[in-house]
């Protein structure tokens, strides 16, 4: 069954195009990490699905349905945690959860009580009186008690300390262990994504610029050290494969959009045969991501290229 199908989806706001020409197919349960700089279109993409906003063009299908055909029926099958608090502050935690239980026929009271106890969330306190971490945890519990088929998380653990973040991730992992929920998680916290996501979608200027595994993305960036004077940097600067360059010791370090094993051939192609590559190494996910997206941000034309 198709869980999600976006075809050539664009969304324009008065300020310009927030999403353009997005294609995204999800046909089996998985965890998808949605990343990109601020304003890249992550939240806009998520908000198309429950649905909170209309696409300007293109087609959107969620859990096999046109989301606007019956939003209530769709929302019974998905969960959404906004990046801001969409929860009324002056209500007690237990009343919020009771409200959810009354709205969703499939609400799993035992599951939520177990999590609530473990996280130490006092249901008698007003939402506004809970710590920031507990507010985020409660918002997550409100989004999962009906065991959604699709869970949309917009920065679920942003601004939380590492211990609380780990608890939030723990809830998601246990939910995944128990049921085949598809999760789309938009976040800046790459180390969290590395732990959770099987698939990485990178947005830049409203376009999809990567769709594959974290390893695929990381493998395609490498750090190459070349001997002093070996390379004509002026010539290299015009190649889209060159992501960055900086002096290093006596030689130069260049960051290339290729795998370490291809580095020799790429450098030879760019700087002429016989250029001495001292060392070519892979990078961490975080470094690879930073160099890739920085190059895209500097060059919106390149960002449009898949």
């Amino acid at each position, binding site marked *: 069954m198709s869980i999600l199908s976006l075809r050539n989806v664009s969304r324009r706001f008065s300020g310009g195009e927030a999403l353009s020409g997005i294609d995204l197919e999800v046909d089996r349960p998985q965890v998808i990490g949605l990343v990109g700089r601020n304003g890249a279109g992550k939240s806009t993409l998520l908000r198309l699905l429950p649905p909170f906003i209309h696409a300007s063009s293109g087609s959107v299908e969620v859990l096999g349905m046109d989301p606007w055909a019956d939003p209530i029926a769709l929302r019974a099958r998905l969960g959404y945690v906004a990046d801001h608090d969409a929860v009324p502050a002056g209500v007690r935690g237990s009343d919020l959860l009771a409200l959810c239980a009354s709205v969703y026929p499939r609400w799993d009271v035992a599951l939520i009580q177990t999590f609530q106890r473990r996280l130490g969330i006092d249901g008698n306190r007003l939402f506004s009186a809970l710590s920031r971490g507990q507010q985020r945890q409660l918002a997550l519990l409100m989004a999962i008690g009906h065991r959604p088929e699709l869970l949309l998380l917009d920065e679920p653990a942003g601004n939380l300390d590492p211990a609380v973040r780990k608890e939030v991730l723990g809830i998601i992992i246990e939910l995944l262990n128990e049921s085949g929920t598809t999760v789309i998680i938009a976040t800046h916290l790459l180390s969290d994504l590395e732990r959770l996501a099987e698939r990485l979608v990178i947005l830049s200027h409203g376009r999809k610029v990567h769709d594959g595994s974290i390893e695929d993305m*990381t493998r395609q960036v490498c750090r190459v050290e070349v001997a002093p004077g070996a390379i004509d940097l002026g010539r290299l600067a015009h190649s889209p494969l060159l992501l960055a360059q900086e002096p290093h010791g006596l030689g130069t370090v260049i960051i290339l959009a290729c795998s370490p094993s291809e580095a020799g051939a790429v450098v030879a192609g760019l700087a002429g045969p016989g250029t001495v590559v001292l*060392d070519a190494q892979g990078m961490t996910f*975080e470094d690879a991501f930073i160099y890739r997206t920085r190059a895209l941000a500097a060059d919106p034309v390149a960002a449009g290229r898949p």
Partner: protein
Amino acid sequence: MLLTINPNLGDPIYLQLVRQIQEAIASGRLTAGERVPSHRDLAVQLTVNSLTVKRAFDELERLGLLTTRRGLGTFVVETLPADVRHDVRTAIINDLGRAASAARNGGLARGEWTTLADHAWKDKDTP
């Protein structure tokens, strides 16, 4: 079983798990026939997607180190392949090679390099 994940290593998480379990077996911390936690339990313990742990287990099965008995769980094999220690050595040699080339490029003298290596060894004295 004490496993850790280090996002600064640059290796995919599943590979970090493969290597740590390999090392635990090679060093005798995990013994032949011993039962290991399920991939789902380990996933919760490590806060990683259980598919990642499953992938590490699959790789360790392929390497002939782990075996899954239906309904019983996952175990270290009874008869370990002869080259377990050899594989761990190869991985260490690769790591040292990377570190040595960084040291050379960074202009470290050989004496400094051996001192640093010695410090790194002592740092790991108390696990």
